[in-house]
């Protein structure tokens, strides 16, 4: 049945993706929910939360707020907060509740900014979509807010922007040494550097490490003529760690940019074929003929059982769906699917 999951649990939602970009930037992030979404985002989807405090709040909506549409209450609460803690910005993050009652989050953000004097914007997520959509919307919201033509005039800076790098997309542990080796790299939303968004139009070029960063890269190309390349160095390092791929027909499941980077490594090392499968964004520019888009459990089950592959490289939680697969399974952790195995602090 469409939409029914008997084995897998739901993947990271858009609201979690939005918070993952904003988390280190020093703003006040207000999740417009009753509390449960905030609990899910922080308690499950944000690996930095246990160790690195950030100003994340739940709007604490109650039934009467939703029924009576008491938006002013939220504006007042946000303004009071903005006056008290003086954050760099106030961001409103959408969840299913405002989506159902049709809250105009963008207008509320404008009211908050006007009343408090603190920059405010909204990321209109709704909890129905997946994390990459939330990341994409947040990059665009931040760029539209902070990346202005006047700030981008003059000589280009020495930095290389990195887009699409969130704890969902890349292995935080594997990414740390890569970042350390490239001190000119400036990953947007990865560290406490809101200024990077102001300077985004002056970057040397951008590297897109996951499809969630593509739209922002295209926006920067269109408005500021900043070129971009698409590659995931952490995926390259992972792909190189697989011992023997010669002659193998591989089905790999992850996000598209990671798959593109890994595919190249495996093909160079003699793999017979590499089919990329994803549950997430499927950008036309990155798609190869024969690549797979999964939505339902049985689609992956059928692919695994098809006999077309003798090696599957995917997150371990997908393995129970491959009960009729007779080849070799290799784990490729993906936080957005399993919510674990990538924790830089462990």
């Amino acid at each position: 049945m469409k939409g029914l999951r008997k084995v897998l649990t739901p993947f990271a939602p858009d609201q979690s993706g939005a918070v993952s970009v904003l988390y280190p930037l020093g703003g006040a992030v207000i999740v417009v929910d009753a509390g449960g979404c905030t609990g899910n985002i922080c308690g499950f989807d944000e690996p930095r939360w246990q160790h690195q405090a950030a100003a994340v709040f739940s709007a604490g909506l109650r039934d009467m707020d939703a029924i009576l549409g008491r938006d002013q209450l939220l504006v007042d609460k946000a303004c009071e907060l903005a006056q008290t803690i003086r954050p760099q910005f106030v961001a409103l993050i959408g969840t299913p509740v405002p989506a159902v009652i049709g809250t105009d989050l963008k207008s509320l953000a404008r009211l908050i900014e006007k009343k408090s004097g603190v920059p405010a914007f909204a990321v209109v997520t709704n909890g129905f979509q997946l994390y990459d959509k939330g990341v994409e919307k947040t990059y665009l919201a931040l760029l539209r807010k902070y990346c202005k033509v006047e700030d981008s005039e003059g000589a280009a800076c020495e930095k290389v922007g990195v887009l699409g790098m969130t704890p969902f997309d890349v292995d935080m542990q594997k990414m740390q040494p890569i970042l350390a080796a490239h001190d000119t790299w400036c990953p947007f939303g990865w560290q406490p550097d809101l200024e990077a968004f102001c300077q985004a139009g002056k970057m040397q070029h951008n590297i897109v490490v996951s499809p969630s960063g593509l739209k922002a890269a295209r926006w920067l190309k269109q408005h500021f003529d900043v070129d971009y390349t698409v590659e995931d160095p952490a995926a390259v390092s992972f792909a190189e760690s697989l011992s023997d791929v010669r002659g193998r027909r591989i089905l790999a499941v992850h996000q598209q940019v990671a798959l593109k980077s890994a595919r190249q490594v495996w093909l160079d090392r003699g793999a017979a074929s590499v089919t990329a499968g994803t549950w997430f964004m499927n950008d036309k520019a990155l798609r190869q003929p024969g690549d797979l888009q999964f939505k339902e459990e049985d689609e992956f089950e059928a692919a695994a059982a098809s006999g077309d592959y003798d090696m599957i490289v995917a997150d371990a939680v997908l393995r129970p769906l491959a009960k009729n697969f007779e080849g070799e399974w290799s784990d490729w952790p993906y936080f957005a699917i399993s919510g674990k195995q990538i924790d830089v602090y462990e």
Partner: protein
Amino acid sequence: MKTGQTVSELLSKGEKALQSQIAETRDLIYSSPATLAYNSPGAEGYGVKRAGLAIPGSVMLIVSPGCCGRNTSELSELPEYRHRFFYLTMDETDLITGRHLTKIPDAVEEITAFLPQKPSVVMICITCVDALLGTDMDRVCRKAEKAAGVPVRPCYMYALTREGRKPPMVHVRQSLYDLLKKRQRKVDCVNLLGFFNGVDRDSELFELLNAVGVRNVRTLKDCRSIEDFDQMAEANFNLVLNPEALPAAEDLCKRLNMPFIQMNQLYQIDKIAAQYEALGRALGVHFDFEKRREQAEAALSHLKGAAAGWQFAVGEVADANPFELALALLREGFEVKAIYGTVISEYWPWLTKIAELNPGVKIMDNTSPEMMACRPEGTAPTVAVGADAAYYYRDVPQTAKVIWRNPRQPFGFDGVKKLARSVEAAIAEFGREGEEDERA
């Protein structure tokens, strides 16, 4: 930024100024590890999802946008919940058309066919979205029950109604006990309602009930099969140990003619005794609890020696009401520096007594935005009781941490005794670590 206020400052504003348990939330809720249990009760303890699966052999279908089921991944890996959660994820079209509701009976059928054994009950968990859509889930459940041939019950994970008259954790208990069917009641059977993780079997409560002829003291936690659960309908009466189970007890009283008596998890020795005396009067029996009371008093007396020079910070993420526990500690002569807990007007009597004993006790509201700046003051050695207090004191050197979240709920004199011993052990552990550091 100023954090918290003293109990006397709080009382000076008057009882009406305190947020009532059923009033609306007034502030934004700060998200920190100390408030995870508030925002997402199931993340650490029993939320609606875990509670809804309290009946042996039951499974749950979560009908919601993907975001609501996300953290269930963690729960699904625990052996007792493996293959018990299923999801019918809604999309935006479902939201507009409500078509997800028509899929539920088919989904329940497909799940029952998928499982090797027919589930004892299928719980349908719905969330804020359906609360707003006004879904008649009872009707949907009846339809699903007819289609699949198994009992189907709703449970409402409506965070929107958390401070309402019927919050989710109240309703889920009603849904569960609604499955009990009328049976011949037996005089030697009693149910303990309220705690999903059961009650510590070392508690004198069991021994006292046994002594007056109650041979079967049942809890939901101890039911190993659906037959065990069905036997709960034989109880002569219910003891309600957590107010969240009161509406369920009232339902059972109306439906199965099963009376109930309320008791509370307390740490004040005299109040525990008074509670047993009141229960004895209601049942027309005398409970001989002196020996257990003396044991608790002895443990406290011993702790006084061990904890000389220590002060307490009491949190709400623990098996205790932080205000009652703080009062109990103050009455025993301990110094309480701070209480981390959400104040509601129902706690007014405890607050006034705390103020009489020490008007300077700081009250910190975990959910308040000002807790972002919360740093414990002073350098005195502190016992931090509760996961939230331990969180705030995580970087404070002289701290003995007592998380006080037990596999089963402590109760009565035995709870006092065990808490005293846990505190003593934490202080001793702190001392040992200090000695090792010095040697190093």
